[in-house]
């Protein structure tokens, strides 16, 4: 199929439709309203469901309803709206309800602003909800990847009966570039063994998140954490760019990853051995893969549009293999290729100086 020019938000919406998403429930918020608008324009005429819900609380709980029937459903929102969904996301993990949540981050905290930002890494990856749980988090850096990861989100969500969050930022949501939709590439698992559709010739089923009997919740917790271990083993992905001989390794997720790529190219142009490690899955985080890279590097520089959130995962992955520095902007400020390049130049010089000192 030929490439078409498409806006990030609309690409996500169309990809969801291609993935077989039967229901969209959402509440408008900038910078992702195009997703709801696109769904509103297309789903009803396809005989699928679209509801502008009364709130994000309602949206995500409608997704839960759809998910308990084994139906592919999605909601989308931005920062403060995603905050309202956290209780339900926790419940989905506990009750093992599938569903896709698209989070197009804006500036925060509070109502913040509508500029691109990455301040919701913790919210997505560490979970703003209660209890022990993990949301699978996928982080696209291009419109093409937004399509591919939307497909993957629906698949993983059904495969593991766990919510999957597509974590994008306002820049990716609002930008346009050519992309190829292709076709939904996955074979979805059978849901008939667990989905609710009436207790017809089988024992009644329940999908609930309250487990009062002694030991029941602990048993459940152990079981879902075994599942998370399997997810870590089988689903972790990242992009490595010019890492083979990299002395300074940049880490960045989402659009910052591609901005950093420009800085890497510029640095390489000046003979600096710089590479980029971009996690595509934020949970599961590519811990071992980053550690392997860090062992051969002199320094890791983590870049984010926040005050240092993924930094914690980067540090724990590097695990002392080399020093980790951080450079970020927050509140809607944008990192540019030149800003990153200047930081790279400064740190690269420092690395070499230290080495000379050792000699």
């Amino acid at each position: 199929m030929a490439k078409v020019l498409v806006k990030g938000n609309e690409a996500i919406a169309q990809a969801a439709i291609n993935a077989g998403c039967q229901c969209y429930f959402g509440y408008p918020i900038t910078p992702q309203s195009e997703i709801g608008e696109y769904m509103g324009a297309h789903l009803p005429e396809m005989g699928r469901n679209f509801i502008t819900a009364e709130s994000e609380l309602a949206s995500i709980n409608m997704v839960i309803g759809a998910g308990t029937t084994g139906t592919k459903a999605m909601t989308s929102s931005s920062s403060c709206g995603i905050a309202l969904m956290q209780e339900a996301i926790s419940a989905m993990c506990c009750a093992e309800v599938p569903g896709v949540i698209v989070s197009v981050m804006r500036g925060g905290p509070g109502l913040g602003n509508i500029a691109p930002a990455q301040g919701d890494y913790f919210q997505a990856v560490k979970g703003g909800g209660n209890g022990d749980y993990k949301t699978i988090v996928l982080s696209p850096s291009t419109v093409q990847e937004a399509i591919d990861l939307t497909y993957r989100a629906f698949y993983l969500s059904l495969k593991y009966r766990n919510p999957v969050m597509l974590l994008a930022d306002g820049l990716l949501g609002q930008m346009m570039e050519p992309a190829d939709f292709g076709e939904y590439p996955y074979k979805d698992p059978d849901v008939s063994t667990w989905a609710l559709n009436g207790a017809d010739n089988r024992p009644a089923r329940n999908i609930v998140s309250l487990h009062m009997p002694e030991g029941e919740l602990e048993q459940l917790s152990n079981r879902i954490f075994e599942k998370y271990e399997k997810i870590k083993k089988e689903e972790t992905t990242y992009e490595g760019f010019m890492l083979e001989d990299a002395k300074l390794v940049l880490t960045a997720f989402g659009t910052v990853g591609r901005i950093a790529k420009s800085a890497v190219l510029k640095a390489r142009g000046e003979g600096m051995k710089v590479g980029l490690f971009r996690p595509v899955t934020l949970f599961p985080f590519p811990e071992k893969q980053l550690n392997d890279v860090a062992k051969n590097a002199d320094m890791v520089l983590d870049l984010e549009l926040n005050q240092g959130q993924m930094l914690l995962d980067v540090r724990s992955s590097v695990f002392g293999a080399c020093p980790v520095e951080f450079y970020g902007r927050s509140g809607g400020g944008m990192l540019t290729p030149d800003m990153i390049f200047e930081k790279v130049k400064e740190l690269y010089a420092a690395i070499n100086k230290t080495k000379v000192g050792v000699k």
Partner: protein
Amino acid sequence: MAETLVYKRPESLLKDGHFTFCPGCGHGVVLKIIAELIDEFNLQKDTIAISSVGCSIFLEKFFNLDVAGASHGRSPCVATGVKRCKPDKFVFTYQGDGDAATIGFNETIHTACRGEHISMIMINNTNFGMTGGQASATTLVGQVTTTTPKGRKAELTGYPLHAAEIVAKCDGTAYCARVAITDSKNIRQAKAAIKKAFEAQLNGLGFGFVEVLAACPTNWHMTPVESVKHIEEVTEKIHCLGVFKDVTVQEKV
């Protein structure tokens, strides 16, 4: 002499699903009514029940039905999601006043306005039962609860919310009533009302809502008998019984 079967436990209740409610509590009565109706409509194989938070939560312990759980106040949303995906299934929510009329009243109203083809049963015992009897939105002025130890004062916390009257105003509501289960006659009327709400869904008319005034003797610090008397003499004066909307009747007019 051949025995005549005069009563049979509903198939929609689990055989070993013994109710665990306090003596005099209204939940058991209403759950049994619901189970009987689902049997009567032969819907047991086609029902998905949505539980809520509070004493209304443990549906899967009592019902021989598929059950989806919902967080506090969100049962109508979960029900909406289920019904939209499975329009040929029978979907109802079972909630209390702390859930449907307090934390989740926004969802209640919007679900009614959308005219979702679901049925919603709200037990109103004018307090948060499971958490120990705190004041809810429907608590009566003057009612003593653990958060209003000297009685609810209107000048501090306002007035009780009349859920059924408000839901009746929503255009998507097909049937809406408030009933009580204080005696056999009332229980029969309650069953008739819930049946109407179910029929509204089954006939594709829209949203059905039944608010059931029920006793909470433990938190009211009354005996079951006193509680029933309290509903008749006090609660019903504020939360009046009646059918507030019935599109099948209006159509006939």
